[in-house]
């Protein structure tokens, strides 16, 4: 069984994102082919997380369209969910569960396998994923005892515990030590080499070989994103006055 099902081009056209009253970005296009990695760059508030949430189907673009192999993603959210892993800022770890139980739930939910063979396969992947991120010895530890870096690694282990074509990573390197950092980069490289795709919002240089850069600043609308000139003027005034 291949680690990753054949990936199809993932595409966004003319995406507009509005948060509150402000347009965060507009007219954003991207293309992602099998084996491609996309690094989202830009200052805080430039919409990196918003774009990742759009890609994950967690929110809908105000305008524009996301397609997978030509068909709109919004039409079949469950099918889209089956081909992606989303690692956000929050680790989604239940303190009452052990590290292995936490991972087993998300891996089981993603794989959804029935029968003993499928479950054994998922079990093997879970062990391998924990080992890869150096959590093998902590598998039976209650998650509430894990450090911030260990929690992060546990969240990242989800990527390997169930196969998915598209990895959406929101600042995945936070709280990671140098070794885990290198392992994450290698995991992304391996994933892309096997025909997977990755989108990663980050402020640090991951050193990925084949990554394209998408600078979100280029899509920031004029006017600071305010449709209403009065709101823009007000925002400028507040910015001028500085923090109270």
């Amino acid at each position, binding site marked *: 069984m291949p680690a990753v099902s054949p990936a199809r081009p993932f595409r966004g056209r003319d995406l507009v994102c509005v948060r509150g009253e402000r347009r965060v970005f507009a007219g954003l296009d991207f293309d992602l082919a099998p084996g491609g990695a996309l690094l989202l760059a830009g200052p805080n508030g430039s919409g990196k997380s918003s774009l990742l949430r759009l890609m994950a189907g*967690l929110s*809908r673009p105000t305008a524009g369209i996301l397609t997978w192999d030509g068909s709109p993603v919004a039409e079949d959210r469950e099918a889209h969910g*089956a081909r992606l892993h989303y690692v*956000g800022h*929050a680790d989604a770890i239940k303190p009452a*569960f052990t590290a292995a139980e936490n991972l087993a*739930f*998300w891996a089981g*939910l993603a794989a*959804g396998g029935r029968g003993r063979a499928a479950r054994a396969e998922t079990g093997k992947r879970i062990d391998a994923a924990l080992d890869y991120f150096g959590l093998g010895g902590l598998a039976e530890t209650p998650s509430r005892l894990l450090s911030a870096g260990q929690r992060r690694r546990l969240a990242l282990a989800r990527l390997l515990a169930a196969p998915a074509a598209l990895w959406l990573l929101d600042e995945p390197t936070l709280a990671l030590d140098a070794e885990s950092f290198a392992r994450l980069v290698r995991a992304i490289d391996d994933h892309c080499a096997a025909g997977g795709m990755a989108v990663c919002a980050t402020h640090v240089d991951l050193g990925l070989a084949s990554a394209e850069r998408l600078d979100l600043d280029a899509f920031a609308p004029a006017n600071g994103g305010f449709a209403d000139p009065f709101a823009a003027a007000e925002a400028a005034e507040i910015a001028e006055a500085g923090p109270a």
Partner: protein
Amino acid sequence: MSRFLAILWRDLRLAGRWGSDTVMVVVFFVLAVVLFPFGVGPEAQVLARIAAGVIWVTALLAAMLSLERLFLVDYEDGGLDLLASAPVSLELVVLAKCLAHWLTTGLPLILVSPLLAVLLNLEAEGYAVLLAAMLAGTPTLTLIGAIGAALALGARRGGALLSLLVLPLYIPVLIFGVAAVDASVAGLSAHPHLMFLGAFFLGALALSPWAAAAGLRQALE
């Protein structure tokens, strides 16, 4: 279906590990009912007259207590993001979480209620109907409450907002739940009231997963 069971099983195990919700709900239910004889006096006839009403009202309030946390914990720790981007429909997630919630809070309430009925001197004819009415009524409370819990996500003081949203919607269940017990005590048929409770349950079962899932999507935007 295996994903539905996975979510149900996870929530049940979480409740089992940290059983505080179940204990809190049951203790609140018992304490609140026990307060009534102190408040209205220990006359057996008075208590028997109000028994069904007291049990139902406190059951509603007890069910409310744990509803706030139905989605909130997953919302705060990022789990809801993952559930919403998993290959499972959000409606099914809602249904699994509601079933787990009912098994860990609604069912214990039903099991305790005959004891409290003894305490309040409920007539012997009322017991079976009280249990039947609660069996049909408490899942409805959970399902309606799920809509409120989803809508209150992300709001400050969500618990207070939740009560305002949900308690008015609980009134029909309260009316028919109490009427069923009163009817059987008065020697009338409780059947029509139970049928209404069943109808509310089926209606809530059909509608609330969609409404709650829409509320969750709104909260995740």
